[in-house]
Structure formats: C-alpha cells, structure tokens
C-alpha cells in the first residue's frame, strides 16, 4: 500500500514538473549565424560574422559562469525561401535560440515572420530595410547597426546640403533597394530637392553602363546608388570609366561598406561620402577588437559594421540571459529584458534598444581618403560628421510599429 502511494505521488510530481516546464530553464544557448556565405554579400557578413559570434561567446565570460553556448551557421544564398526553411529547421529540430547577422532585406523580412511565429529571437545587424522596426516590427526582433532611414538621412541630407538638389537613382530591384530609394527620396524632397528619375536594376548585374548612361542623360546633380555589395562597387568603378564624376555629377553610395571601399581601391573610391555606425579605427577599443578579428580572418580583413553588430548584439544578449539567471527559451521574454537594459559595448558605445526593436547608437558620416592620405591597407576613412543616436534613426513619433503606442 505504502509503495503504491509513493509511486502515485512521484508520478503526480513528475506530471506537474513536465506541465509547468520547470526544467525548461537551463544554462544552454545556441546561436545561429544565418548569412550569405557564398554570394555577393559574403564579405559584408559571411565568415566574418561567424568569427564575430565566436569572439562574443569567448569575451562574454558566460562559460566561466557555467553556460554552454554553441554557434552554428548556414548559407541562406540570398534566397528568402531557403532562409525560411533553414530557420524552421533550426528552431524546430536544432533548438537554435537566436538568429544573428541575417543580411539581405528580402531574407530578413521572411525570417522575421518565422521568428515571431515560433517565439524565437532575431538580432539583425545585416539587413537594411527600416521596415523591420516599422510596420513589420515584432516583439522578437532587434535591429541594430544601420537601416535605410539612417543611411538616407545621414548621407542623403549631407549631399543635399552640399548643393546636390536634383537626384537620379540606380536602385537594386528588391525590398532593400526600394526602401532605400523611398527613404532617400523623402529626405531629398523635404530639403527642397527633386528626383528626376530612377531605374530598377536586377541584383547581381555585372555591367551598369546602360543605367549609368541613363543617369548621365538625366543631368541630375547626384546619382544615388541604392544598391549594395558587388553591385555598388561595379557601378562606382564603371561610373569613373564613363567620366560621370569628371562631368560634374556626384555619386552618392548610399550603402557602402569598408570591404567595398577596400575592394575598389582608393584611386577609384577617393572622395566618396558614406555613412556607417562602426569603423575599426575609431578608438583604442575598436582597434583592439579589430586587430584580434583580423588575425582570425583568412584574408586578414577588418570587420564591417555588420560583423561588429553581430558581436555587440550578442554581448548584450548574453547580459540579458545572465540577468535572467537562465535561458527561458522564450524569445519575447529575452528580447523584453534586452530592451529594458541599456546597451554598453566596446564597439558602439553606450546606447539603448527602443520599444520597436531599434538599437540606438550614433551614426557617422565618413569621407574616403585619397591615396596620399592613407597610411595602410585598411586606413580608408576620415570622419566628417556624427549624428547622435536619438537623431540618427526614425523617431518613434513617426513610427508605424504596432508596439509603439501614440
């Protein structure tokens, strides 16, 4: 009789435990680096984002506190359908807790839905579309580093102020390109400028001469390049060839990364204005991180802002996990904690994460150095302006994010 009662009690206890999920909280976390490992954006995120994630795990000191943290990675090939099926598999069978990098706006918007549906987490530092924290915002996504709103306001308004009041856009024909064109058009018009035309170009185009000739014929003062990666470098290189800058028109590389400028070479890229939120040569901390990062990269590249964003957002994620005392494996709960805590990391400085998921930190306007000014292979930028964090991104008063209460 006694044993039967004991067995019954034990069984009930087990059932209660299982039902309440008392065992779900543990000290295990799995990070998924979902990025372009083989295509035209692979230098922007890619291998470097995996290195950045591993460095964040090592530097966080979580291991010493008894945590077990794994990093996995996959190549989404810039295809939203491939990305969503990897995302579902990662969440359902591989128990990945958090997605980082996720560059390419088309991919990011698709993964955004999966992450929300499955109550997972996306810490996006790679995609450009500002919709991730606007109409498409979710309680599960944090968007750091940059977005099209920031680029348009920083680079766009600097160009208009310098007298570039008529624009022609060469736009990558997908979510990111259109978002960047729209955001920049708004800035140009608000400043009293006008847009004379635009052309939508399929991504991965090797030859831009047709589009550059159309831009040239428009007589616009500024040719806005609303594209990224290899498309941007090819447009800039070919614009030089067709004498566009010599003819008096200015190029606005609305999204240019350090690796793009490095790959173009200073002879072609000198004098271009661009906006980034991270540059390796800002202060001692960024230099120290970048040196360690470069040593682990096969081509010894310095980190891009996307890779820096992976590192910084993961450090903040680990702080939130630590504060929670264990991993609840509940995406919205961890993200809420991350929004509650101010951010502070060696790469982006002090900042915060807003209710709409937007990571807030300063944005910088750089000018590409001339070959004479540069002292080394990666000595490429000089700082010409800083926009404080609270002005760099779309103000909450203009937000269409359902999480923001007006």
């Amino acid at each position, binding site marked *: 009789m006694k044993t039967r009662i004991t067995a019954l009690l034990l069984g009930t206890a087990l059932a209660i435990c299982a039902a309440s999920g008392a065992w779900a909280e543990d000290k295990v976390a799995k990070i998924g680096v979902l990025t372009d490992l083989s295509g035209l954006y692979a*230098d922007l995120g890619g291998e470097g984002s995996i290195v950045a994630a591993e460095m964040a795990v090592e530097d966080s000191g979580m291991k010493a506190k008894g945590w077990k943290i794994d990093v996995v990675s996959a190549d989404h090939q810039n295809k939203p359908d491939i990305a969503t099926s990897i995302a579902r598999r990662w969440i359902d069978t591989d128990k990945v807790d958090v997605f980082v990098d996720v560059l390419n706006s088309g991919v990011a918007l698709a993964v955004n839905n999966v992450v929300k549906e499955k109550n997972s987490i996306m810490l996006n530092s790679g995609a450009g579309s500002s919709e991730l924290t606007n109409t498409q915002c979710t309680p599960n996504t944090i968007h750091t580093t940059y977005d099209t709103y920031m680029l348009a306001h920083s680079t766009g308004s600097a160009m208009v102020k310098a007298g570039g009041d008529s624009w022609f856009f060469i736009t990558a024909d997908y979510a990111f390109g259109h978002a960047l064109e729209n955001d920049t058009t708004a800035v140009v018009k608000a400043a009293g400028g006008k847009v004379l035309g635009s052309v939508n170009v399929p991504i991965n185009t090797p030859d831009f001469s047709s589009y550059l000739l*159309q831009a040239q014929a428009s007589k616009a003062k500024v040719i806005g390049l609303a594209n990224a990666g290899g498309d941007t470098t090819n447009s800039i*290189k070919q614009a030089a060839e067709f004498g566009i800058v010599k003819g008096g028109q200015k190029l606005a590389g609305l999204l240019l990364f350090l*690796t793009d400028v490095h790959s*173009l070479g200073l002879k072609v890229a000198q004098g271009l204005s661009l906006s980034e939120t991270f540059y390796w040569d800002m202060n001692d901390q960024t230099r120290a991180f970048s040196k360690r990062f470069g040593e682990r990269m096969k081509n010894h590249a310095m980190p891009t802002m996307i890779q820096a964003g992976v590192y910084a957002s993961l450090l903040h994620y680990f702080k939130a996990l630590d504060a929670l005392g264990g991993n609840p494996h509940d995406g919205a709960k961890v993200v809420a904690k991350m929004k509650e805590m101010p951010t502070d990391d060696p790469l982006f400085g002090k900042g915060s994460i807003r209710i709409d998921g937007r990571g807030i930190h300063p944005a910088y306007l750089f000018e590409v150095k001339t070959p004479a000014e540069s002292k080394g292979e990666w000595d490429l930028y000089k700082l010409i302006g800083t926009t404080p964090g609270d002005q760099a991104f779309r103000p909450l008063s203009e937000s269409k994010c359902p999480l923001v209460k007006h």
Partner: protein
Amino acid sequence: MQALYAQLLVGLINGSFYALLSLGLAVIFGMLNIINFAHGALYMMGAFVAYFLLNLANIGYWPALILAPIAVGIFGMILERTLLRWLTGLDHLYGLLLTFGLALIIQGVFQNYFGSSGLPYSIPDELKGGMNLGFMFLPIYRGWVVVFSLVVCLLTWYLIERTRLGANLRAATENPTLVRAFGVNVPRMITLTYGLGVGLAALAGVLSAPINQVRPLMGADLIIVVFAVVVIGGMGSIMGSIITGFALGVIEGLTKYFYPEASNTVVFVLMVLVLLVKPSGLTGRAS
C-alpha cells in the same frame, strides 16, 4: 534617339564578352562534345591571373592578354588530360556534372582566399580616357574591347572553318578512328582544342578585369546567360555563336533601356521562343 544609339553601342560591348565566351563553349562542344560548365570559372581565373601578374610580378595588361590565356589554357589541358578524357563516349550529362562540380570547387577555393568583393584592376594607361561621339561618351577601353574581341572571334572562326588544321579537327570529331589511321594524333588535338576554348574564356576574363571587379563569382553571374546564347545560336556552330553573342548583347542593352527590370530575363525568354520554333538553334543543323 541619341540615348538609343548609346544603348545599342553599350549592348554591342557586352555582346563582345558573350561572343568570346560562347565561342569557346561552341568550340569545346563542337569538337569534344563536352558541355563545359567550368567555362565561367575559367573566365574568372583569366581575370585573376591578370591581377596576379600585375601585383606579384609587375607584368602589365598587354603581356597579360597573352600570358593569362596561355596559363589558364594549360590548366584547362591538364583538366582535360586527367579528368575529362575519362568521359569520352559517355552521356553529355556526365561531362556537365563533372565540369559543374569543377566550377564550384574552383570558385570556392578563390572565394576562400580572396573573399567575395573582389580586387581592383585598373585600365591600362594607353586606353584611359574617352571620346565624345556626340550621342555618348565612349570610354576608349570599351571601344578596344569590341574591336579586339571581334578580331579574335573571326580569327578563331577562320582557324577552324578555313584551315587544314581546322579541317583535321572537324574530321577527327566525325570519325576519330579514320583520322588516326591517317597518322594524326587525335587525343593530342583534342587536348589542344580544349586548351584553345579555355584560353578564349581566360582572354575574355582579362578583357573584363578593368571593367568589372576581379571577383570569384564574376563568371558564375555570366555563364548562365552565355549558355542561353549558345543554345539560341545553335550548339557547336562557330559563326552562329559569334553572331548571336553580339546580337543578344544588343537586345539586352535595349531591354535595359525600355524595361530594365526584365534585363536579366530577356535572354531566357528569347531562348524559350527559339527552342519552340527551331529546337536546333538559329544556325544549328538538326541532328
């Protein structure tokens, strides 16, 4: 109207790359019966060899125009000797799979070491600048590309269709045993032909290095279009692929002007239409 002339000329420039690449493919397919999917990767290698020559050995553009095709051509001949030879007589599919796999490996290796954003290569000093043609500003380098590739295409056509060497080659494809009986070393000839096709791809790579970034994926972006060009022109037809290459460049250029969103699909739409009407291609003979 002026804009239209400009687009036609730009189309012709792109067409010259299509022509050079599809010519190499046509030579290889016509003579060896191999659908060479590694063509794009070999084109990329041509551009990289030019880059290495300049940056490691300080050898400029002009010698690279000769040295890079020879170097990559030799690499191609080694591939033919060690790998492709084993597939003689098998279904096309095997050659396609092997060369496609080779392309992925070559591109992967380059991407591993040089990243995806590429390396700079500038236009040689002699060809810098441009001319104002009234309707457009023509960079001298682009003009050079059109003229030079046209000359190379015609020379290749002459070599294969009008010389004794070419006649031997064509005979060897028709009936290798008989040609061997005449004392011609057929295997060596096939190796050299593959080398020639590959060399043409590498030459196109060197030509494009100053225009595009030298990137590991530069060939992968182009090769699919080039295959469509070869299919439209007729597999194995030398003149067909030259003419179609230039013509499609022009058609693509016009699309870029009138409806740019379709510029990367127009070639495939044309391919479908041609296949529906004339399955052997515009100049191909029905088998």
